């Protein structure tokens, strides 16, 4: 763990530094903004809200000086994926359709963060309308994985020749919340919001070496999250460590009168035990996650992780989720159908892009949508409309819903048999270079990459990526834990225990180190002792 401020965990160090006055919210904000500027090449942010962020930091500073902070998040710089509505700040979904669109309201999660004093630094990059697994398919260009520029990666990746430099070797972040993952990973913010429909938070978290939590469906409000698949979307949380994820979860979870699918009961925020105990737990290893294409490196990490639990006294059992293999095709039908329905509103009338083609209302609609959406979005709309045709509805949509139920039932059976938590890989391999990634089309990529994460969305279950180790190429690899519905505390407790065991290394990023002079220079790291 480095001894510098920006690389630190929010809960353990930064909030203490703020509390003790070793750093002010304004200083913190300024440093993050500076770092955002010097890491601009990562393309993590679509919009940086420097002015409002500094204002918010100033307000926070006043509150802290009065001794009346709004809570642990007061003064903490955060970033938000650009598919959450932010009042007065552009919300683009990385699409021409919403370029320049300024929402009149805040998403509930954004409002909650602001109400607790968090400082919003900006909106992060993504695949257009969150459709993708690389953060490469947005109108603002691909996001670059900060680890591409780390000492760890540079040392291990052998350049093919001198002429093929960094430009060729940089790796993708995964997606679709790649901007948020890169922002947290490169220390430009302490936590970020992502969204997770088929793995969009956990996948980039794994590739960027950060914690990525997808809470139980219905635990966090979706109001203000521009939907991909309403029945699977969940706001995701990206942080440096599991404790921070718990802090964010506590500040965001609970009933929202504006989202009828949220839980009715209030959510009680929790703190995780300092010394978590896993000895009484039963950890399930679903054999179907031994999927084709799983790298041997990850397979071996997965089995090492299982051994860690065994050695700690936990029961480790192999379990079966037989219908998981149908999840990709089932997801394809349900996702595209909902996409087709959700995207119908973008007609250029009320908001967003409107084409200059004015021959007729219909031609205006058609041109608006052709100009506004990229191929991926249009392709999904087309398939979705096919599945929604009256004559196809029973054959595809209804069948897919039934399969979804079977997938969910598999989890129910496993948890019903006494298993507490499932342990799986998050991704098939470490991040691939951009040049390699774009050899395949978006659909193929998404289908491959979502395979390990999607089933949790089908079943609405909470799941988390915990950064585990570096690959032979010096890139992060993560493992995933899947828990029972609304059992986030148990899930995060296990994740925290695991995090302590693996001691994932801190990214060594020149840019970050340059901007992080100061506060902790003479102090040894206190974290993860």
């Amino acid at each position, binding site marked *: 763990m480095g001894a510098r401020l920006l690389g630190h965990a929010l809960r353990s160090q930064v909030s203490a530094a703020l509390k003790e006055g070793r750093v002010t919210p304004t200083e913190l904000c300024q440093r993050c903004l500076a770092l955002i500027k010097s890491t601009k090449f990562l393309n993590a942010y679509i919009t940086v809200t420097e002015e409002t962020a500094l204002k918010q930091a100033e307000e926070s500073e006043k509150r802290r000086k009065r001794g009346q902070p709004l809570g642990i998040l007061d003064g903490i710089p955060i970033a938000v994926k650009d598919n*959450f*509505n932010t009042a007065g700040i552009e*919300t683009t*979904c990385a699409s021409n359709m*919403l370029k320049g669109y300024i*929402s*009149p*309201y805040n*998403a509930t999660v954004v409002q909650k963060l602001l109400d607790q004093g968090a400082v919003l630094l900006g909106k992060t990059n993504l695949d257009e309308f969150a459709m993708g697994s690389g953060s490469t398919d947005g109108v603002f260009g691909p996001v670059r994985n900060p680890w591409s520029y780390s000492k760890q990666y540079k040392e291990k990746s052998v350049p093919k020749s001198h002429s093929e430099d960094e430009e060729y070797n940089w790796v993708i972040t995964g997606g679709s919340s790649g901007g948020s993952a890169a922002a947290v990973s490169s220390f430009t913010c302490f936590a970020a919001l992502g969204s997770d429909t088929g793995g969009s938070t956990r996948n980039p978290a794994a590739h960027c070496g950060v914690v990525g939590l997808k809470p139980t469906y219905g635990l966090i409000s*979706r*109001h*203000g*999250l*521009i*939907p991909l*698949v*309403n*029945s699977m979307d969940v706001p995701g949380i990206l942080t440096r460590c599991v404790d921070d994820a718990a802090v964010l979860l506590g500040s965001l979870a609970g009933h929202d*009168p*504006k*989202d*009828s*699918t949220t839980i*009715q009961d209030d959510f009680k925020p929790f703190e995780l035990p300092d010394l978590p105990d896993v000895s009484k737990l039963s950890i399930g290893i679903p054999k179907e996650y031994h999927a084709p294409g799983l790298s041997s490196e990850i397979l071996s990490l997965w089995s090492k992780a299982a051994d860690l639990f065994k050695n700690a006294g936990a029961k480790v059992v192999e379990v079966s989720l037989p219908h998981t293999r149908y999840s990709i095709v089932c997801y394809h039908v349900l996702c595209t*159908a*909902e996409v087709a*329905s959700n*995207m*119908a*509103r*973008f*007609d250029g*009338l*009320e*908001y967003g892009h409107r084409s200059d083609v004015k021959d007729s*209302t219909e031609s205006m*609609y058609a041109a608006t949508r052709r100009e506004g959406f990229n191929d991926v979005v249009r392709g999904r709309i087309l398939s979705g*409309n096919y599945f*929604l*045709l*009256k004559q196809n*509805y029973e054959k595809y*949509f209804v069948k897919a819903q039934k399969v979804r139920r079977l997938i969910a039932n598999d989890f129910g059976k496993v948890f019903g048999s006494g298993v507490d938590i499932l342990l799986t890989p998050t991704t098939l391999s470490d991040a691939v270079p951009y040049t390699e990634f774009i050899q395949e089309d978006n659909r193929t990529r998404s289908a491959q990459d979502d395979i390990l994460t999607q089933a949790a969305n089908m079943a609405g279950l909470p799941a988390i990526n915990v950064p585990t180790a570096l690959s032979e190429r010096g890139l992060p690899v993560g493992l995933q834990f899947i828990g029972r519905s609304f059992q986030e505390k148990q899930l995060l407790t296990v994740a925290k225990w695991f995090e302590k065991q693996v001691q994932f290394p801190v990214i060594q990023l020149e840019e970050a180190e340059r901007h992080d002079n100061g506060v902790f220079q003479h102090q040894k790291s206190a974290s993860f002792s």
Partner: protein
Amino acid sequence: MAAVLAMVARGCGGVWRRLRQRCAVRPGSGPFPRGERAVACNARGGMMSAGKSGLTPWIPVVGLEIHAQISSNSKLFSGSQVQFAAPPNSLVSFFDASLPGTLPVLNRRCVEAAVMTGLALNCHINKKSLFDRKHYFYADLPAGYQITQQRVPIAVNGSLSYSLCIDNKMSQMVTKTVRIKQIQLEQDSGKSLHDDARSQTLVDLNRAGVGLMELVMEPDMCCGEEAAAAVRELQLILQTLGSSQAVMAEGQLRVDANVSVHHPGEPYGVRTEVKNINSIRFLAKAVDYEIQRQIEELGNGGTISNETRAFDSKLGFMPEPNLPPLILYDAKSLPANMNHQQVINIDWIRERLPDLPSVKREKLVEQYGILPEHSFTLLVWQQDQNCNSRHSNEDGLPEFFENVVKQTQMKPKKVIGWILNDLLSYLKQHSLTVKESPVSSFLLADLLNLLEKKEISSTAAKQVLAELWKGKGKTPLETVKEQKLELLQDQKELEQICQAVIDGQENEVMAIKAGNQKVLNKLIGLVQKKTQGRSNPVLVKQLLEKKLSE
């Protein structure tokens, strides 16, 4: 339209026959050329003269789809106000405009209104109902879909009883029943206006998202009159419940009719839809017109095609993922620990249903001994007046009547005449609601009491009423005194007047004496004239008879 037909109907039984006689239509004649409306529905259901028979009879079948706007302060899924004729786009929430990321939140009041309506129409209320998206691509449907209840609606399998008169005679009424297939909750659309001159479309989203109840009536009707009577009764029920104001002119009640004709023993014919019907009178005409058109078309060897079908979206429905199933409870299933604000108890609503129009009518007939047709007039008229009234089901004509009865010694059977003839014609003439009547129930009762106590004659009473309409704040008694309308109590004076009349009408007196008693009425009239209606006709008759027999 090729020709005008004279039709003979065996009305609601209901076989219609097509006659061979035809006459050319004048060019430019409207949709309802004069003379064509000879078609009528005969509610007796008996076989009428078949005229030039020998032709295969036709059976018309009419079903209705009715959209009733729910009377609520806010929209079905958003907090925007519901208001008629507000400035364009002034009642639009982020959700109504389908801003990305907004979600529907179900309005409890709308659910209660639908449950009330379902109960009043004898429906089975589904304790679990679902919401679906129905996809269209219209400018006035901002989200590109309407949230409705396609798979499992809130209420199903109901019925509506309605009455109609035979041959337009109020004294001959029959009661019929139409089955209600289902009631579903759904969103209204916005409105778009096409400005061809500037080739632009203007969209007003004030109405977008207002709660509707879609009521589907099975094809149990067979003519325009039946359809009109059913809608009139439904309108009255909705207004009594307060679940919809149901003012057709304001679009709160929109009726689409499905019409087909077939030969007896054959399957139903191809349906056509008559849409956007905005008054009950027009409904009856439009349905009958469509029946005629179809019979004629088929008679000419043509076929019926369903044009509106062609515009139907090929896109289907999808479950609305942002709304969990709508769960309702009854006394038995109500969970003990549930917050009452969060649940809807069907039994609770049932217990609080107001008297429905049919019950109200029965009560009026039973309690006051008035004729059934009078009870209809009392209630139906109330509804017509509601076109202008915001608070429709309060203080209507029945209540006015009951108040008068309570405050007067006059028998209800006599009071009803004053209500239906005098009050009603005055209000109609001046387009006033009962509430706006310048003569309150108290004043009218006062007046009728004077009449009942024989202090004034009925002629004088009408004169007083005419004065009271002017609303000058005078009591009936004051008016009587002012205009000297009291009955002549002085018998001597009356006798003198009677004598004077007899003396001046020699011929009449002769006739009476010759045995023509009818002529006596003329003399009575003359006395009344001389006394300016202030004489008691019974007394006058006695006096005249006495004098003539002397």
